[in-house]
């Protein structure tokens, strides 16, 4: 009781000191400049960030990720219960939920949406996130029950992820087309979902308009419905310089993907608010660790000592300056530190030429060798970091060759494991370590991100962690995975970089969460 009173008192004090939050202004249009347009707006059938990152505005989910990404909050489901054995999840839906066209959102829509998203045939690229669900039942008009094949520690976060967005069975199946895939194509042209906004017009690669969904369930602090904005207008401006010029001219309100080189300049602009949103994003260099390369030549990167040597010979702080103009932080694990269960004791492989030389000598390569790295043609970032690394590695006698390739060629070569080293970027799509681990560290999925690196213990630990409900045990498993990966060094560890977004000062409460999703639900334009 005492504690409650004290809490109450401090709350009152805090309120008295800061005063009530200024009321958010309602209405208006936010003009948001994107670098690339979305491609396809069915959340189940896309793997593109440009689609994923706006999906939650159009399709609401049962649960919502909390602001820090470490837990979940109620979404379309007002409450949920997990059984003792972790194999039954019961969700109670909010009363009176509606889709953006006013039609009721039924428990059957929830079952249908999740069944489709987890199906092997219809579920698309991210079906694996929901693979632990055995079956879904509905009870009455407000209860959905998930029966699990096995306890799944990630299921709650998975239900807050874009591909678990709740769609209208009636509307999607009424779309023209013979198969569900064809119907999805037609539906995704004019999608109607359950999110705070609904798509009202779309001219490909030019502009896309989302208007507020008048039936959205969530009220603001003042009790009136969210969202605040009437419309969000996305305009597509591929050129970085043009996007910034347009923002400075006041023709747009927000510009995404500001080049890091211009962050300082824009921070000094009194009209602008230059924000670096923390991102679950890592910049690294993938190495091919196979004994021979595709063309049959011997690959020195097969030796773990060589990979460690290259890591020591890489000055991460210098790279951070060169590429991100000081906005990045050195990698402490293969996964971004904002990922739940990430583990790091400080920057991996601190710059140490002596150690690097010793490791190379131990590997019998004191005389140096040549490494070829695939870079993205036309990418200023890639050129900058690789030319810096040429100089760093020259000190241990390693000659770094840069091979400029455009995106499609590079991806095809990488997928065919026809590479020695490449520049890589990873962004988490779910607030859990399982996605990035399954791809970067776990061999069975795609040979540890095509590096060919395999550690049987890592694979075993990952399999175990996928069914481990005890958070402490799971954390121990992940700690070991990350330590083994760091020691095995199938990549050159580099940096984590934020999302640079510039906006006019009057734009308030726009958020880009670490997963990259643009969240407009609380955004408003100050008078």
């Amino acid at each position, binding site marked *: 009781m005492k504690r409650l009173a004290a809490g109450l008192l401090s709350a009152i004090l805090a309120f008295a000191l800061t005063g009530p939050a200024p009321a958010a202004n309602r209405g208006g249009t936010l003009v948001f400049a994107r670098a690339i347009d979305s491609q396809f707006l069915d959340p189940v059938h896309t793997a593109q960030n440009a689609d994923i990152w706006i999906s939650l505005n159009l399709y609401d989910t049962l649960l919502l990720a909390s602001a820090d990404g470490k837990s979940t909050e109620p979404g379309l489901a007002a409450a949920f219960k997990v059984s003792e054995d972790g194999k039954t999840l019961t969700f109670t839906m909010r009363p009176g939920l509606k889709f953006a066209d006013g039609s009721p959102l039924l428990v059957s829509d929830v079952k249908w949406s999740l069944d489709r998203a987890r199906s092997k045939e219809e579920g698309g690229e991210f079906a694996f996130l929901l693979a632990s669900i055995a079956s879904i039942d509905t009870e009455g008009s407000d209860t959905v029950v998930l029966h699990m094949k096995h306890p799944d520690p990630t299921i709650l976060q998975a239900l807050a992820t874009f591909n678990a967005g709740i769609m209208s069975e009636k509307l999607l199946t009424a779309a023209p087309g013979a198969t569900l895939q064809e119907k999805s194509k037609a539906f995704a042209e004019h999608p109607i979902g359950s999110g705070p906004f609904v798509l009202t017009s779309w001219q490909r690669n030019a502009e896309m308009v989302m208007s507020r969904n008048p039936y959205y369930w969530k009220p603001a602090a003042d009790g009136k419905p969210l969202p605040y904005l009437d419309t969000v207008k996305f305009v*597509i401006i591929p050129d970085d310089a043009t996007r910034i010029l347009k923002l400075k001219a006041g023709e747009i309100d927000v510009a995404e993907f500001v080049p890091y080189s211009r962050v300082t300049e824009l921070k000094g602009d009194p009209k602008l608010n230059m924000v670096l949103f923390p991102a679950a994003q890592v910049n690294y260099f993938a190495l091919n660790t196979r004994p021979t390369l595709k063309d049959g030549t011997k690959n020195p990167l097969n030796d773990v000592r060589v990979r460690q040597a290259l890591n020591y010979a890489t000055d991460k702080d210098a790279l951070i300056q060169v590429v991100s103009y000081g906005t990045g932080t050195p990698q402490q694990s293969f996964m971004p530190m904002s990922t739940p269960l990430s583990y790091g004791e400080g920057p991996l492989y601190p710059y140490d030429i002596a150690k690097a030389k010793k490791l190379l000598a131990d590997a019998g390569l004191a005389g140096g060798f040549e490494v070829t790295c695939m870079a993205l043609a036309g990418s200023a970032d890639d050129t900058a970091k690789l030319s810096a690394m040429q100089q760093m590695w020259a000190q241990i006698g390693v000659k770094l060759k840069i091979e400029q390739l455009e995106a499609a060629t590079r*991806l095809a070569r990488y997928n065919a494991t026809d590479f020695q080293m490449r520049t890589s970027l990873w962004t988490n799509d779910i607030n859990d370590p399982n996605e990035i681990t399954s791809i970067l560290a776990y061999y069975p999925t795609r040979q540890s991100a095509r590096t060919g690196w395999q550690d049987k213990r890592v694979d075993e630990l990952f399999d175990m962690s996928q069914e481990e409900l005890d958070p402490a045990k799971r954390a121990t498993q992940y700690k070991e995975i990350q330590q083994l990966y760091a020691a095995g060094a199938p990549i050159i560890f580099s940096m984590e970089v934020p999302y640079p977004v510039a906006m006019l000062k009057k734009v308030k409460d726009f958020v880009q969460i670490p997963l990259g999703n643009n969240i407009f639900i609380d955004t408003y334009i100050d008078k």
Partner: protein
Amino acid sequence: MTLLAILARRLLHIAATVVLVALLIFALMHFLPGDPVLMLLGERATDASIAQMRHAMGFDRTVLEQFWEFLLHMTTLQFGDSITMRVPVVSLIRDRLPVTLMLTGMAMMLALLIAVPLAFVAALRQGGIADAVIRVISQVSLSMPVFYIGLILLITLAAGLRWFPVGGIGNGFLEDIYYLFLPALTLALSLSAILLRNLRESLIEVLHAEYVSFATAKGLMRRTVLGRHVLRNAWISTITLLGLHIGSLVGGAVITETVFAVPGVGRLMIDSIFSRDYAVVQGLTMVLAVMVSVVFLAVDALQAMLDPRVGA
């Protein structure tokens, strides 16, 4: 040969060109390294999902089978659906083409408006200061990359002086003209330099021709001499040059459309090539090939009208 026979022969040429372009673009796209399925599924894709998607899109069939389907599509003018955007290619082209046509049309007009008067001034004052200045300026604008000119115009006239919007497209015809003025000017500058140099040379040549001296000696007004005799004869090679540069104008539109955020077919083409969207690249190439051929035909016809010696 009668006009009808000429026309028939030219149409046959166009048909042959289009068929060749079709073969070439199909071969180029399919032999180019890279895979649309990989681009669509991204870096996270597993082998199983890649195989599944490849099958769903029909890319696991033989090249011959795919080529047959492509031919069928082309003959019925059905270009299929975009691989990345999953909408009919025809609708994408229909939405974008008017913008690019307007942009290149405006660029051509601006190029002529700049080139013709300046060429006259330069030619009539050959060797003078005006001539030298004009020649230097044309040399500079010719050697500057298009994206660079575009950025300079954006920074000075749009962002700086606020005379024009910073890129994008307007709402309705008049606003479109306003929005497209700077990108069109960007495209027009290098073209006008080429036209200017050519027209200046021809004007000087014609000005020294005997029939011009004769016309002047006849006592015709200077305006009549310049308009009817000098310009009409000097025009011919410039018109041909203009026609030949339609292709590079479309090429330049790719860059200007990116810098100025203009949603035309140039940007569509670039995006589609990079994402290996075969359907869009093939469809769009066919449409552009037909259009450029038709423009060449029109230029030939115009030339024949201006110069009775042609086409006889």
